[in-house]
């Protein structure tokens, strides 16, 4: 009986040892595994996109019509604004303002998403070989998307703004009210650590503050849709509708140089 127990115990120890061994080995296996999975993931995500386009054809058709209408209207407005822009540029030159250098970005395609609902991340098809490094901010034409948390040779993982682990220092564009924006795993972001009477109104635009080096200043995060009181009653929070639909992003821009 003692021998049998000893055998059982040794097998349990072996199992535990194996699990711990794989646990310790996991970080080293991530990069080669993702490199190997890059092609099948690209194919699978392309097939998924095609399936989505097929299923939501009707919705996409009407969305396309609405967007065309909006694009026409915006083009008209843009032409009207051009004159103002030229005037502004002339005045800036006169005042000898230093022109802000534009961001240098790398365009990447989303090939995979987080495997469960407890994290909000995506895998992109660009990595260290393309200049992508850990900690770089990720945006698109509409606003902030997230930050690179892991960069492999040919792929990288991006933690989205909707993940609770990502905190972004932000300000309200109108009133310059500061706060910390983090994700909720849902469709809304949360701006925290606001004073008792914050100068925030519904539909205010929230942008990155640029107070730390993680994110450049002025990137749109979203618009305020609700203001509430924290459970502790000491401070307030506001809910933000993200400028980017984080659930359906397909292409992103990694800011490789600010």
């Amino acid at each position, binding site marked *: 009986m003692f021998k049998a127990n000893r055998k059982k115990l040794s097998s349990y120890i072996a199992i535990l040892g194996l699990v711990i061994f794989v*646990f310790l080995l996991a*970080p080293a296996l991530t990069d080669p595994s993702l490199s190997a*999975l890059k092609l099948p993931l690209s194919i699978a995500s392309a097939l*998924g996109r095609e399936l989505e386009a097929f299923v939501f054809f009707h919705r996409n058709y009407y969305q396309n019509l609405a967007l065309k209408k909006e694009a026409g209207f915006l083009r008209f407005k843009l032409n009207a604004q051009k004159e103002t822009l030229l005037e502004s540029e002339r005045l800036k030159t006169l005042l000898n303002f230093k022109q802000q250098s534009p961001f240098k970005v790398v365009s990447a395609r989303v090939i995979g998403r987080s*495997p469960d*609902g407890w994290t909000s991340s995506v895998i992109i098809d660009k990595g260290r070989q393309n200049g992508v490094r850990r900690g770089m901010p990720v945006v698109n034409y509409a606003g902030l998307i997230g930050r690179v948390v892991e960069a492999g040779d040919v792929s990288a993982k991006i933690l989205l703004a909707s993940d609770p682990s990502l905190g972004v220092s932000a300000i309200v564009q109108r009133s310059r009210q500061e706060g910390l924006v983090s994700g*909720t*795993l*849902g469709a809304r972001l949360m701006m925290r650590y606001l004073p008792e009477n914050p100068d925030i109104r519904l539909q205010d635009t929230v942008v990155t503050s640029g107070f730390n080096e993680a994110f450049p200043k002025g990137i749109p995060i979203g618009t305020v849709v609700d203001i509430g009181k924290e459970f502790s009653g000491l401070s307030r929070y506001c809910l933000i509708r993200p400028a980017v639909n984080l*659930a359906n992003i397909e292409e992103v821009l990694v800011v490789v140089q600010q």
Partner: protein
Amino acid sequence: MRKIIFFICIITSCILQAAFPAPLKIFGTKPDLLLICAISACFIFGQGWALFFSLTSGLLKDILGPGPVYSNILLFPLWGLLIIGFSRKVCLDYDPARMGAVFVAAVLQNIFCGSSLIFQGKGIPPGIFLRIALVSSLYTALAWPPVFKFIQSVSYRPPAQRETSIQDEVSIQDD
């Protein structure tokens, strides 16, 4: 050969998990295909291989996630071992019973992940917590029968050639 096929099934599930089609999502959640693979291994293979495959599934899920905590490597084999131990005490030969086991494992997995986030001080609204914990687990349990049937059909071998699996071990013990 069927172990290789099962391994290919795990890789396919891993790819599907990362590139899950949006139209198939329910309330923004998707089934945990890798957990299904890990538990399927417990019903198809013996303890050793079940452990190996659940470890592989956990590792792949962690590789796809943003990290840096690799919890699935530890949790998947744990659920596998618990189901193997449980199936020795209680008959899990029927699909509803197995679905129940998958649901319980998925709920425990989700509660563990959600709770760890809350304990880290990351605020998750209760509605979102419940949606992910329950809807996702339910979806995983509902996706279990077709996925398991598919895995079983592709990695099937006639009973005469099969090596001892949990069910066989249980029946031997009963005899």
